[in-house]
């Protein structure tokens, strides 16, 4: 069986030649959650956008392949690529406020895609959306469907977006820090909901986060990203038990623990970062697109 998502040696550059992704390879198997961790600016969001075909215009992919369920996106023309991505993937975004159109009611916003893009009947789409709202534990779907986004709380909006993401039964969901913009108390509920729906629907998720605590809770596999480079990948349990890379070890050490939140908290070691920077600079020196 081919991987749900297979990224092979993906490199991307900015107009000034700076590399934002450095030969990134990662796979997400069907029904599996792969966490993508790294600090701010590491390129996590870039990878998600590359998969979904919405990279900023300024970012250019210079090498590498992306396959969704064995279909090479690079081999498809733009229209076929959009159709494939639209049918098989979905996004759970970071900021649930800006991800919903402020001037349209929730109901039409959610059914629209099923009806217009996937050609469902209005009735079927409506039924499906209500079912999903129930799954994300929205108790008053009538009110929510009639609401404008700003009339709902952040947690409610994120539930709506989770329901929308799962509604069309995508094979792969990219979740880009789906809890970061939320209240701490709501974060856990949302995380649990995503995990629940993921299990029920058997959907593969590429889960972007900078929080190792979240990684431990939700994922089976992890890729650790630093400056656009995957420095380590492993099964989640394995990664925590025996981190191989110095950066991963430093990252784990820098993550607070509930048992002893302060004692274990120390910043990522300077020398580790210096070593990494030197390593990456050396790699950039010898790198040519297509030969990296």
């Amino acid at each position, binding site marked *: 069986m081919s991987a749900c998502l297979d990224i092979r040696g993906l490199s991307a550059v900015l107009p000034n030649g700076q590399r934002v992704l450095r030969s990134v390879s990662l796979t997400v198997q069907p029904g599996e959650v792969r966490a993508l961790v790294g600090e701010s600016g590491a390129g996590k969001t870039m990878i998600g956008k590359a998969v979904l075909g919405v990279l900023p215009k300024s970012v250019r992919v210079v090498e590498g392949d992306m396959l969704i369920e064995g279909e090479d996106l690079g081999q498809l023309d733009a229209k076929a690529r959009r159709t494939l991505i639209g049918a098989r993937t979905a996004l759970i975004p970071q900021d649930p406020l800006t991800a919903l159109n402020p001037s349209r009611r929730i109901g039409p916003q959610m059914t*629209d895609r099923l009806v217009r893009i996937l050609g469902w009947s209005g009735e079927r789409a409506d039924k499906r959306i209500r079912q999903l709202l129930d799954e994300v534990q929205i108790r008053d779907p009538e009110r929510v469907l009639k609401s404008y986004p700003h009339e709902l709380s952040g947690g409610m909006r994120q539930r709506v977006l989770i329901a929308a993401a799962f509604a069309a039964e995508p094979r792969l969901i990219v979740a880009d820090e789906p809890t970061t913009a939320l209240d701490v108390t709501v974060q856990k509920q949302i995380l649990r909901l995503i995990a629940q729906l993921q299990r029920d629907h058997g959907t593969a998720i590429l889960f972007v986060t900078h929080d190792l605590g979240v990684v431990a809770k939700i994922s089976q596999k992890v890729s650790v990203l630093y400056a656009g480079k995957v420095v380590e990948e492993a099964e989640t349990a394995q990664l925590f038990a025996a981190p191989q890379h110095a950066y991963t070890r430093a990252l784990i050490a820098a993550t607070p623990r509930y048992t002893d939140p302060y004692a274990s908290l120390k910043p990522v070691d300077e020398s580790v970062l210096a070593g990494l920077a030197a390593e990456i600079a050396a790699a950039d020196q010898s790198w040519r697109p297509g030969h990296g």
Partner: protein
Amino acid sequence: MDEARIARRGLSPRLWLAGGWLLLALLAAIFAPLIAPQDPLAQDLMLERLPPFWLDGAEPGYWLGTDSLGRDLLSRLIFGGRIAFIVAFAAATSACLIGSALGLIAGYFGGWADRIISRVVDVWMAFPPVLFAILLVAVLGTSLSSVILAIAIIDWTRFCRVIRAEAMSQARMDYVESARIAGYGRTGIMLREVLPNVLPSVVALLSLEMGIAVIVEAILSFVNLSISTDDPTWGSIIAEGRLSIHQAWWVLVFPLITLILTVLSFSQFGEALKARFDPVLR
């Protein structure tokens, strides 16, 4: 927020005052032949420069007095409203359609479409608008349609600039990206996702532009470049009133008040409508 809440309950005095005046003026213009107490063109030298009704020497039936040819001022204002409203609606709607469409395209698509449209707007706005209008009408000839055309040709840039900026910020929003991921085409996203969000601004600008069109038409009439008929327009009445300011101040003052009230009402009505349309303020 308070104002918005009042607006939602439909109690905004601004909306009612502005809307009320506009409705009154519009109905008067539409039903002018039924409402006007006198024939606006009928001259009667026996009745010249009659003062408004509360002053000594006023005649019944000539509420706001008469001008130096003995024509009834109120009737002339009512009939003048016809041309004012025709110009306001036709010119503002044309400017709005052209400007908003180009602004939406420039702001949402960006790239070369934006570069071309923005360059044209820059060049356009380098002309002083009133001079531009006078020049255009001088070239196109003095008729109702050329006045409308001139205003539309000049003022579409107002819409274009504002709508471009709004569409641009909308295009960066996550829900536009989500729509692209879902597989919507670019044009579909522009119309379904972006347009509804810029619509409140379009409505406000449209109403404001109607007021501007009324002023521009009045200015053109004032300099004798508007419609070359005997039909009264607010601008031509003001021009006549200016000549007889010392003998009959009312011929200048009443059309000015009418003009100012109408222009202010258009702009206030637009703002109030915008607050009403905007789902976040609503």
